[in-house]
């Protein structure tokens, strides 16, 4: 565990040194400041008083708050994830560079520990950034509406989990190719194209595809590919509005994808000559 912890800190330091982390934090800080400025122009107190006078409960306020939170965080989280993929895609290839990996492998550290350390480091970078962004937005809205519902903070874990799934693919591609391009392209393709299309196609498979074979193939691909579209869409929304998770399938199948990618990464890494 100590070695994984060391590699995790080392990766964090690498992210800081390459200004990726700071850029990420800078973008988040900017988003928080803009949100704060916009809300400073709105008289939320009179809105609250008005709603409470008319309805006599905070149900509507809760809906307004969670809708606002989702409206703000959805595009920012999407942008954050794009940045996270870009910034983390070189962590593993950098470790595998000649002259660097030789040194790491000459130390009493297992290859598995090295890889887990790099993986955990990447996750930590994203967790800290997303945590900062989401908590910042949540604080502003909670303060303005005097409505303190922590359900929205679940989105930190969901966004980080979505990244964790895509990052496992980036790690595998990094181990296989010792480069960052393939992993980054595949992660973008899944996040921006494949997952949304499959989500749509799966829901309307009976309408779109006449052939049973084609329908089953589409469904098979749907189950295999991480459900980034559902995770970043419906799941964040359901958790923020306090509905909870109604369907665990996207979570479980994406987690299985993550496990598979990490197993393949470790098997490949353990056998690779450097």
């Amino acid at each position, binding site marked *: 565990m100590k*070695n994984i912890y*060391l590699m995790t800190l*080392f990766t964090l*330091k*690498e992210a800081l*040194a*390459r200004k990726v982390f700071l850029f990420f934090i800078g973008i988040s800080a900017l988003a928080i400041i803009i949100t704060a400025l916009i809300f400073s122009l709105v008289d939320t107190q009179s809105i609250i008083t008005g709603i409470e006078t008319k309805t006599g409960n905070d149900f509507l306020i809760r809906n307004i708050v969670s809708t606002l939170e989702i409206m703000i965080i959805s595009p920012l989280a999407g942008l954050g994830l794009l940045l996270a993929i870009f910034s983390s895609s070189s962590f593993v290839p950098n470790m595998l*560079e*000649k*002259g*660097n*990996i*030789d*040194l*790491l*492998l*000459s*130390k*009493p*550290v*297992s290859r598995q520990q090295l890889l887990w350390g790099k993986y955990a480091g990447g996750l930590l970078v994203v967790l800290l950034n997303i945590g900062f962004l989401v908590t910042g937005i949540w604080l502003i809205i909670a303060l303005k509406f005097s409505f303190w519902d922590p359900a929205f903070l679940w989105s930190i874990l969901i966004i980080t989990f979505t990244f964790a799934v895509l990052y496992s693919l980036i790690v595998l591609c990094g181990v296989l190719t010792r480069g960052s391009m393939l992993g980054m392209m595949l992660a973008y393709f899944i996040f921006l194209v494949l997952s949304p299309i499959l989500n749509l196609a799966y829901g309307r498979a009976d309408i779109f595809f006449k052939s049973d074979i084609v329908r089953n193939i589409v469904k098979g691909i749907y189950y295999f590919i991480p459900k980034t579209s559902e995770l970043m869409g419906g799941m964040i929304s359901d958790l923020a509005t306090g509905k909870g998770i109604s369907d665990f399938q996207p979570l479980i199948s994406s987690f299985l994808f993550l496990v598979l990618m990490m197993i393949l990464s470790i098997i490949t890494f353990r*056998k690779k*000559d*450097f």
Partner: protein
Amino acid sequence: MAIIETKELTKYYSSRSQKVLALSGFDLTLEQGTIFGLLGPNGAGKTTLIKILLSITFPTSGQAYVLGRDLSDFTMKKKIGYLPENHRYPGYLTGGEVLKFFGRLSGLDGAGLDKKIDELLEMMKLTKWKKVKVKTYSKGMMQRLGLAQAMINDPELIFLDEPTDGVDPIGRKEIRDILLELKARSKTIFLNSHLLSEVELITDRVAILNKGTLLREGTVQELTEKKEEYRLTIDPPDQSFSMPESYNGVTISPVKDAFNVKASDTAQLNLFIDYLRQNNVLISGIIKEKSTLEDMFISLIEQAEKGSPS
């Protein structure tokens, strides 16, 4: 105890179109406290051997044991140091941070590690560079930092791949002195170097590798000694005596202020000495000829190249 033992170690690298033999049936036994030099032209398999011993690369066949343990046991690396050729440290780390990171990865921590870092930086004359980022270091400084990194865990066995690469002559001498000091402390040093004169100065044993095959192995003395070849000096040269070009199977050729004598064995050499003495020639010296390690290395590689199908 053998600190390194390899048996029939073979490594093929596979590319898309062909298999390249990097190491062929390599056998080696290395005892503790030895400075061992591995020599060979580029692509001979020297780095591959070190990488196999450190499990950076895996052998195709054969066995190897380091510190009496199987290579799959990575915990043995707590007692191993390694300076790779063309090593790279993240440029954003300072010299002190590099040593701290690798020290901690080697299982060290706390005040003991900090003390060790300061000692090594002092030894490598890098103390004032401790808090400077390594991206500003010169090649020689990087090599010295690399050597400090290889010694951070006070290893029993140190692998050094071209340790003096980019280091100036004074720095090289200092590194040689450090290696000799380590040897005096019973450390085993496995040295890959192109600088044959340097290897000749410090190693106890040398192996020469070419195209993955071990050509020769032994002490520097054994490898550089010329069989039945002597340098004969006579004092003063007797003007009345004319040295023959050959005598009873012995061939004699003049070299600067002396003669080179080639005899098939000691008895033949003594017969020639008797002949000289009978002719009242005063012999002032006779020493066995030695070649330099470089001469021997070049001649051995040339022979191997001629003998191998290309």
